[in-house]
């Protein structure tokens, strides 16, 4: 059971801090694995509350649309500007479309959507579930013999698995639009040339990796935020601590897992 870290005398004892961090990390890992196992069990049994899942699709997907769009657009602008500038110097301006789209499909699309959903949805799920724990709402569910994982985690997980790929594709598409605009205005590259380069560069495998990353990101955001939310007790201060913890852990895991998938699929052989 996680509660807020109270002031103690460990400030001058880095070993004790490291030990505590390691213990907390192992505990969180175990909680995440148990939550994920229970979630998958209910999904395999088909015990999914679809009306609540659709409501969560709206909360996770539709409500993230604007923030993911703006982030993807400006990431696309900045990245395309840098790529265009360097490739024009080497006289390889026809390759701008290919390079921009590779970056978008393989990395920028999934990670942008993942980060924005982690920030917007992960924090809110952790805060909501922690508040439910503190106000005994989770205990009330247990007394009514309702498993909180089935009632609270499964709809959010299924919704995230449906919406995260959609948001990733949307982030990728907006990044591509930004790339086309920058290539046209900064490098005088016709749209047709940009798109030709995209078609020649992108393979089916890139989309497989894109969707794999989106599903892994959805799993990280929902399972970590729910596991932290469902295992925190205490008071108002602990809601803030749980939210911060969720953001730190989901962001870290998003980047680590993104690298692991990339290294497994694109590492030189």
């Amino acid at each position, binding site marked *: 059971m996680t509660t807020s870290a109270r002031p103690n005398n460990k400030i001058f004892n880095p070993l004790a801090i490291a030990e505590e961090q390691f213990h907390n990390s192992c505990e969180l890992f175990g909680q995440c694995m148990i939550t994920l196992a229970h979630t998958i069990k209910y999904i395999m049994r088909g015990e999914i509350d679809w009306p609540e899942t659709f409501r969560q699709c709206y909360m996770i997907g539709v409500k993230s649309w604007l923030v993911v769009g703006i982030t993807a657009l400006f990431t696309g602008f900045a990245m395309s500007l840098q790529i265009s500038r360097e490739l024009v110097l080497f006289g390889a301006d026809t390759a701008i479309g290919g390079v921009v789209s590779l970056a978008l499909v393989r990395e920028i699309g999934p990670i942008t959507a993942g980060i924005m959903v982690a920030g917007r949805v992960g924090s809110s799920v952790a805060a909501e579930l922690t508040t*439910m724990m503190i*106000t*005994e*709402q989770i*205990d*009330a*569910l*247990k*007394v*009514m*013999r*309702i498993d909180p994982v089935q009632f609270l985690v499964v709809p959010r997980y299924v919704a995230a698995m449906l919406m995260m790929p959609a948001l990733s594709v949307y982030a990728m598409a907006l990044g591509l639009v930004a790339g086309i605009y920058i290539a046209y205005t900064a490098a005088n590259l016709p749209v047709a040339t940009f798109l030709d380069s995209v078609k020649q560069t992108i393979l089916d495998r890139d989309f497989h990796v894109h969707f794999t990353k989106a599903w892994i990101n959805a799993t990280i955001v929902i399972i970590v935020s729910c596991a932290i939310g469902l295992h925190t007790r205490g008071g108002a201060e602990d809601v803030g601590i749980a939210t911060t913890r969720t953001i730190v852990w989901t962001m870290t895991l998003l980047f680590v897992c993104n690298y692991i998938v990339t290294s497994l699929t694109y590492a030189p052989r």
Partner: protein
Amino acid sequence: MVHESSVDQESRTQPLIEVNDLRMSFGDREVLRGVSFKVYAGETLGIIGPSGCGKSTILKLLCGLIEPDAGEIKMRSQEIGLVFQGSALLNSLTVRENLALGLRRRKLSRQEQDRIILEKLTLVGLREYMYAYPTQLSGGQQKRTSFARAIVNDPQIILYDEPTTGLDPVISTVIEDYMIELENRLKAASIVVTHQLSTWTRTADRIVLLHDGKIKWEGNPEEALASQDPYMKQFAHATREGPILAGGI
């Protein structure tokens, strides 16, 4: 309040709740040190005692929310209703949906669910609030909704955790009246955990005084008020002099 004489003698032979030598610690702090009691059908047991003496812990143990370190709990009914101290209504759901949660496993039709929910809401005087959200209700109305949710499956065991704490005296009386009415209707075995004098004197048939993890006194409310036991006397008369504050506030 169900008086001794009205309780069916046959149903009293087998307690619905039986607790033997219950022990529970949180870290180094021993909260319960061998607590035993029985509650029969149609009877309300009041568990009273100072704050932090382990009253609410007993309810959590009875509901299976936490596991005891040692001791035995026998619950002779699967249907348990718990009225939480803070109501514990799910804020994202309407009153109807909160009550429907308790009916989920019975796989009833929507019409059948609505019939039961309306019946329970009528019982607590909240029929017109069926589609309201908990945040739109007053503290007393939330508590009554929590009552309705606890009895939605007509449980044989009802547990009340500080049902009148934080409410004004008038609303407290209303809540106590509902508890007495529910008791008379359902003939359930009830436990009310409280430190409000009016609540335990009005609703309980028998009370136990918990202090320092042990039962210090047991009897009916009339005996409690007249008791010369130092613990019971201090608690019932709310005085500073006595053994309850001996260990510090």
